[in-house]
């Protein structure tokens, strides 16, 4: 199945996480704390300009993460 980087999805689009790569240990841990991992369905709420953070919605919670981190998350379209 075709995969995309979460950072490349448009606002309003949803993806299911298939892989999280080479992210800093701490950031990865924090995502796990928030119950974001392979299998989670993530919706892009908005992307801030100039390569700023991405606001995502997972399980009804809204979370801001950096664009660089969103580029390490691979998803498939839902």
């Amino acid at each position, binding site marked *: 199945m075709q995969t995309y980087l979460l950072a490349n999805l448009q606002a309003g689009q949803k993806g299911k996480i298939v892989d999280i790569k080479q992210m*800093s240990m701490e950031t990865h*841990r*924090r995502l796990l704390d928030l119950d974001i991992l392979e299998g989670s369905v993530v919706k892009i709420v*908005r992307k801030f300009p100039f390569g700023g953070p991405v606001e995502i919605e997972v399980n009804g919670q*809204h979370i801001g993460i950096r664009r660089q981190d969103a580029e390490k998350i691979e998803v498939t379209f839902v």
Partner: protein
Amino acid sequence: MNIALAGNPNTGKTSLFNILTDSYEYVGNWAGVTVEKKMGVLKNNLGTLVDLPGIYSLNPLSKDEGVATNYLLNEDVSIILNIVDASQLKRNLYLTLQLLEYGNPLLICLNMVDVAESLGLQINHEKLAKKLACPVIPIVARTGEGCENLINEIPDLANKKTTPFRVNYGDILEEAIEKLIDLLPSEMDLPKRWLAIQFFEGNTPVRHTLAKYIDGKELDTLYKETEAKLASKAKSLPQYIHLRRGQWIEQIIQDCVIQTKQVEKTITERIDQVVANKYLGIPIFLALMYFTFKLTFEWVGTPLSDLLGEWIEGPVSEGVTSLLQALGASKFMQDLIVDGIIAGVGGVIVFVPQIFMLFLLISFIEDSGYMARITVVMDKLMEHVGLNGKAFIPMIIGFGCNVPGIMAARTIEQPKERLLTIILTPLMSCSARLTVYALFVSTFFKKNQAIIILSLYVLGIVVALILAKIFSTTIARHEESIFVVELPPYRTPQWRSLLRSTWEKGKGFVRKAGTFILAGSVLIWLLGYMGPGGFGVKMEQSFLALIGGFIGSLLTPLGFGTWQAGASLITGFLAKEVVVSTMNIIYAVQDEAALQGILPQFFTPLQAYSFMAFILLYTPCLATVAVIKKETASAKWTWFSVLYAFFVAYLISFIIFQGGKLLGFH
């Protein structure tokens, strides 16, 4: 009996703490309000209640999380009140499960059931209690609903013996857990199964504990072998454990929660479409700050201050004078009280309305949920200078007072970013400095008060950002950074809690007026009363003029080389409001209005602006220096903060004054 409050960040632990102990601690609507444990006496004298910073798991990442985990694991805790956000049940239960495995008597406070209901979630708490084998009480901590039931439950629980809860982690991991438990000595304080699970989850403090009993290599081998055996099921052991727990929690949720309706678009999303808009976000933030200053200085705060000033200068001052005369007090006593204390303390008290107005607005921002949005809107800018969007929270709190601002930096996970935030937060213009601006703008910039003051706040931020860039590329270099921020739903702040938190923040200011500023005023007056020539000398021949004159001579290039300015800057180190007290005493006036009449003889508008910039940037006050020392635990960085601030202040004021002169200002 010690009872600890534990739960995920921003689930209302402190709100519950305040209700259960009849006290008032600081609450807000973002993750990381509480960064230090707080103790209070539980209602009905049931024991001591300890409020802890929020945690997601028992494996800490940041300093505030470390405070919570250490307390839970190392102190004598009889009962844990685990507060759980009903609207985010799944994510919250991960911590609950770890606490159950640890085995302390647990009481689950199912908070925000009202929010959950509005999202269409119905939770069967009785069923949940049965599944988790511990009591579950639904509450709404913000209003106090259900909290009585909670208190009634505590005495029963205290006498109950509990056994650690067991979740099956599958044959492979269970086998490894058993193996590890066998390696541990039979006598141990901590529950062994819990230790083993935490070890496989990657908990570093737990690994250190285990290494005392088991060879490090053996631990590593066991970990790697187990991870390899489970490689087909999950990428890593921590992830595997998380998945197993997730399945177990999912099952419970299916049994206990019914989704009655789907909510389409929440109010929060609608608000965020505007305030967190990609392009409008930053302009809206700046407009909001401008509005805050308008309210504080032009619309509400200043008019009230003027009334208070007139009252102090007139009835209070005259009343006290005639009272002292009637009592037959000596001329010395009369002068000390009227020219020293009333002038010094009164000069600061008149700013109470402005300061409370500012605190009210900051409390509103904290309570509403906007704080977390600011961190996201600002993150890119902050990243450019080597900081993190989260550093904006300490900075905004720092506008009220730098001391809690610096404490708030504890939520920043990356140590270097945290250090930078701590040493730069003092550049945020606090409410004490505001007294100086309020005095000077109302004298020199009557027409543009809000904009001139806003320019000083912006100057503080800009200088902080430039220094962050310089420091982060030289003395505090770092690479990896963490920025993962929860954006909580907006709430309408309740008037009661807003007034409460405004008062809690503002009372420190009033208290300072009665202690520091009172003592400072007496001292300054005495120094101005005595001189090498004896007592009762002219102010110009006093010790105060002598010391101030020396400092003043250094400040001539900045435009305020008078002994009066020099003297007030020294005393400003005690607390920045004392600058105003000192000026009132030096210029022998009782209140703001009279001082406004006199100041133009000593300052031009350009000099006044240069002076305000200096006050903004120079050496932080005594209390701030103390908290920097405590938070950095380093004498070197504390000295650094004190010194760089002075040099930067000198440089900027020099540029403002000399540059301003060249441009033809005066």
